[in-house]
């Protein structure tokens, strides 16, 4: 079967403004969108640029806007879309476009760094002592957050980053913070929670739930942010 793809194009050397190219791809219902994009590259136009990695949704390389929704190209199949009309492939929103479907993810990774506290690090050595003890229940407290693959989809879907406050730290970094705050093995979490309260921090989140909707790993991102907010209120601002 033939499916038409409308692909966002922008070459910083040649183009002042982006445009769209249309490609008709011979494909199957069960093929990944990523497979289709690779067919475009290998058979029609090798200059179409996009990132890819593991090809099955664990490395987080190929988050794109597909028919308006942030999605992993390797996790979506042709049959997931109305393939009788055009499937529109665009770069993730919010980030600046470097070339075609490739965006500058530095702002994304920089946000993760922002929430790092200056703790003294443990030496990198094999240890004589045994592991920490952690109960199954304690692990469950933050287990949802360890599914994150840092694909950047949530930030690209967040109405706050997109429309209100581009400096907002964003869902992915908040999720990462949650992962540590709710890990029973970690002791000095107050410092981390104080960082979250800074400008453009956790209180900028207004629970639009868009991050949860688009997360390709089905993480309940908004719920984790709400839990963190509650903990900050209880631990840092207890009612007397």
């Amino acid at each position, binding site marked *: 079967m033939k499916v038409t793809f409308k692909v966002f194009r922008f*070459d*910083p*050397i*040649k183009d002042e403004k982006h445009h769209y190219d249309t490609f008709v791809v011979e494909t199957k219902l*069960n093929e990944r969108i990523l497979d289709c994009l690779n067919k475009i*590259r*290998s*058979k029609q*136009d*090798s*200059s179409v*640029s996009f*990132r*890819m*990695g*593991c*090809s*099955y*949704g*664990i*490395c*987080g*390389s190929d988050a794109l806007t597909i028919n308006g929704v942030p999605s992993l190209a390797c*996790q979506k*199949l042709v049959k997931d879309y109305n393939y009788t009309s055009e499937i529109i492939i665009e770069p993730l929103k919010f980030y600046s476009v*470097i*070339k*075609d479907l*490739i965006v500058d*993810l530095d702002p994304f990774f920089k946000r*993760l760094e922002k929430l*790092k506290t200056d703790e003294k*690090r*443990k*030496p*990198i*050595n*094999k*240890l*004589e*002592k*045994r*592991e*920490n*003890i*952690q*109960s*199954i229940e*304690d*692990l469950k407290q*933050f*287990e949802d957050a*360890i*599914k994150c693959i*840092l694909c950047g989809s949530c930030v690209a879907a967040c109405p706050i980053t997109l429309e209100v406050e581009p400096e907002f730290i964003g869902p992915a970094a908040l999720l*990462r913070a949650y992962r*540590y705050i709710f*890990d029973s*093995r*970690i002791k000095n979490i107050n410092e981390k929670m104080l960082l979250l309260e800074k400008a453009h921090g956790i209180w900028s989140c207004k629970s639009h739930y868009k991050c949860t909707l688009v997360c390709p790993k089905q993480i309940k991102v908004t719920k984790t942010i709400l839990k963190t907010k509650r903990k900050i209120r209880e631990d840092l601002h207890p009612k007397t």
Partner: protein
Amino acid sequence: MIYTYDVVVIGGGIAGLITALKASEKCSVSVVSKIHVTRSHSVAAQGGIAASLGNEEEDRWEWHMFDTVKGGDYLSDQNAAEILAKEAPGCVSMLEHLGVPFSRNSNGKIQQRRFGGHTQNFGKVPVKRACYAADRTGRTIMDTLYDECLMRKIPLHNEVFINNLLFSENQCCGVVGYDIRDCTPIVFHAKTVVLATGGAGRIFKTTSNGYSSTGDGFGLTLNSGLVLQDMEFIQFHPTGIFGLGILVSEAARAEGGILRNNKNERFMMKYAPSLKELAPRDIIARAILTEINEGRGINGEKYVFLDLRSIGKETLLEKIPEVISFIQTYLGISANEAPVPVAPTCHYFMGGIPTNTKGQVLVDKNHTIARGLYAVGECACVSVHGANRLGCNSLIDLVVFGLRTGKSASRYSIKHNRVSLPVETEKISENKIAFLLEKKGNSSVYNIRENLQNLMTEKCNVFRDGQNLSLALDKICELKKKYSDLVLNDNGTHFNYELQEAFELGNMLKTAESILYSAFKRKESRGAHFRTDFPEREDTKWLKHTLVASNLQGLKVTYFPVKISRFQPLKRKY
């Protein structure tokens, strides 16, 4: 652009990050990766990391060492296997203290499960030795190490492709490459260079490996006139999703998954009566293909069934949630209700850049050291996995030998003065890029790559023979000729992936050729290398490591003995 560090690590997977973290305690270090480091293929490791913690049942490092050596069909260097098994528990403990969210048992200790070839009491019964975080073990270790790198402020150079190793005054003093974003040449001037570039699964049509596994470290090494070791030993994981090659973790079998042919027979009973589905991977991959070749594939097709239905939905979702989810996504199958079509998929390279147990690269059979050059992880060959790696032994290899490599590389860097770079090093990448962009040949990258992948899959798969290997070697020469007649359709400088793929293809061709030649020369069957024309293991002639070199005069192999200490080779039965 020239950056100066003490240690430069090429590749940001688990091996690279552990090495960098360790080295950063004593000197300046940076990680260079052709992708964002968090996308490295280590994230795809699912099932677990092996260590004889004994959290579930009695276990000893001696048993782990024995299993590793036997699993490797006695080609493992036993000094290295001993280090791996002895240091594994301390390394897992370190990972846990760094924050890796391991799954827990009811005592709150790290939970462990069975895995192929891991046994109690020198092969008696399966043992629970695999520590894991559901089926996201690699991903969670990577995330923990990545956060650790951020906290230690280790500079990460993402999306930089390396073209050449640099040598002067008889030692490695850096690397040269270019920024994939805009083709700017970049030189890293270092006291020591560590290669942590992973495997080359992409030279096969069907692989569990990501797009980045193109054997760049193998290419860099061969192009520098250095040798590779035991390249004929390639692991085909028995259970890739049919057609796609995506990995269904061995954990699926550890939790109770059963392999069945078209007669609904549990055929592993025939091939490994004792360990059955938990036999080592080389044995199961051959068993599956034997079933298929003898007409017992499902519906006459080239796959068998992996039946997970008896495990129960709850356990499946708790123990292997990722696997269950992508079986649903790609096959539209609920693994709880229907069996999963699987076939072997290229998974792992036991061979690689020869090193000693400190990660120092060796240049010949006399163990002469390449000064300033180190290798670690899948691209290296210590040799701990011998002729066939056991599941969960790769992650522990990365950590145990990553620590050792980080330590020795930083020591070397502290003790030695920096040697100056060769002249005009930036020009090396600049010229290579310009040459390819301006070249007006007739062959396309994609055409050659597809031919290479088909060739390797047809001629150098689980079963091999001299005639086909020899044909494949001729064919590779043709592909190399075509490669010298390349033309790129994209001549841009920003994220020109066709250009990068052209460089990668060069590495893939070099890697493939070294594999074919090593496989052609080894006239016996051992571990993952099975020759239908020489079906027996022959210790009197072949209990030795291969070294392969590739230069203008062609390919050349030499051999050197295996280090044997505790365990004399026995017939390998499971």
